[in-house]
């Protein structure tokens, strides 16, 4: 498992465009949006967090679109199957690598920008942790979408799973409100941690079966 994780981490780290591109786009969106409107006319605090959440959703969506495509096209999936006889560890390592190299920095960027939303600096770690968990859920979900239509343009599958991302976004929004009002944060957090663990352990099984079907 460690060897698979190290390999996946090394591969993704070498593909600068794959992990740095989404992060730069996120920063660009979060900077460009306030500049593109006349902020003197609007109360930015009221809706800026929504922009962060939408950026989070879109960047997760875009960065996972080709998560399995390269391995499918160059024959690596077949080699993984021969050694492991399924893709569970491979998928787990792949998704966690994406979360680590893209999801965690995204959560960091989102947390820093949430200060503009009136979140006090003391609350930033809470926001970071919540965004990290949201990313964990979103990356698992979109990785599943990507695996659905891997050889027919993965964007189709990712689009199909997009509606399933809405509860995650609602949960994230609710979590932010609990931080703003200072009540019920632990409850939302427990729900997100539980969902994160559940999805991270079950989703690789489902994705593994889907990938096997594509190899047939």
């Amino acid at each position, binding site marked *: 498992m460690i060897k698979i994780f190290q390999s996946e981490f*090394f*591969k993704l780290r*070498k*593909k600068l465009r794959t992990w740095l591109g989404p992060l730069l786009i996120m920063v660009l969106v979060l900077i460009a949006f306030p500049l593109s409107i006349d902020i003197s006319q609007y109360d930015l605090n009221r809706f800026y967090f929504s922009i962060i959440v939408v950026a989070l959703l879109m960047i997760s969506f875009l960065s996972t679109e080709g998560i399995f495509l390269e391995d499918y096209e*160059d024959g*690596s999936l*077949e080699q993984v*199957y021969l050694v492991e006889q399924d893709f569970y560890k491979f998928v787990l390592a792949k998704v966690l690598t994406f979360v680590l190299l893209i999801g965690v920095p995204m959560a960091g960027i989102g947390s820093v920008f949430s200060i503009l939303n009136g979140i006090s600096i003391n609350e930033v770690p809470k926001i970071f942790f919540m965004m990290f968990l949201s990313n964990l859920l979103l990356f698992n979900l979109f990785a599943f979408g990507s695996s659905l239509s891997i050889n027919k343009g993965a964007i189709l599958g990712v689009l199909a799973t997009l509606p399933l991302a809405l509860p995650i976004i609602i949960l994230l929004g609710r979590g932010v409100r609990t931080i703003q009002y200072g009540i019920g944060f632990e409850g939302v957090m427990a729900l997100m941690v539980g969902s994160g663990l559940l999805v991270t352990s079950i989703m690789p099984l489902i994705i593994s079966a889907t990938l096997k079907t594509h*190899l*047939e």
Partner: protein
Amino acid sequence: MSLITANRISYTINNKKLFHNLSFTIDAGSALHIKGGNGSGKSTLLRILLGITTPSKGKIELLKPNTKITYLGHKNAIKNYLTPIENLKLIFHQSSLESALDWFQRLGLSRVQDEISANLSFGQQKKLALIRVLAAPADLIVLDEPFVGLDDSSRNLLNKYLQESISKGSSLALTSHIRPEIISKELMLENFSND
């Protein structure tokens, strides 16, 4: 002793039977050369042997538990954005990396070790991919057109390796339009086609 038995296997795709009622065994220390024209199902049969593809009918049995298999198919499983050495480090554990690097030298790839794999020629990429098989001793070696793109010396080296592996007890299943210089049983897929 048999390593694999195939019992009356058939494979149908898009209502076309590629092969029908195909039975054979591969013994330990023997080779099976699968022959046939383009589209006759040679690669599919190899994938069925490996368990990647499920036959439409029939059964494949691996008789030895935990059989160690090495495989090189049409796709090289090489990462184009990495150097050849980085590719080998991805494939091999530290313990077997030395053997892989030895093969890397023997196949004349040392001079391109700092190049990105995308810049290697087709033959060089093929050699790099073959190291996956050459540096990892296995009970069963499965090769799909392994000689395509190789120069004469590499072809000889591969033939010699395969013959040595077979004499040590490994089994080999391969497809090749270029006749391998090893003693092997031949399986002509057209004989099992319904068309």
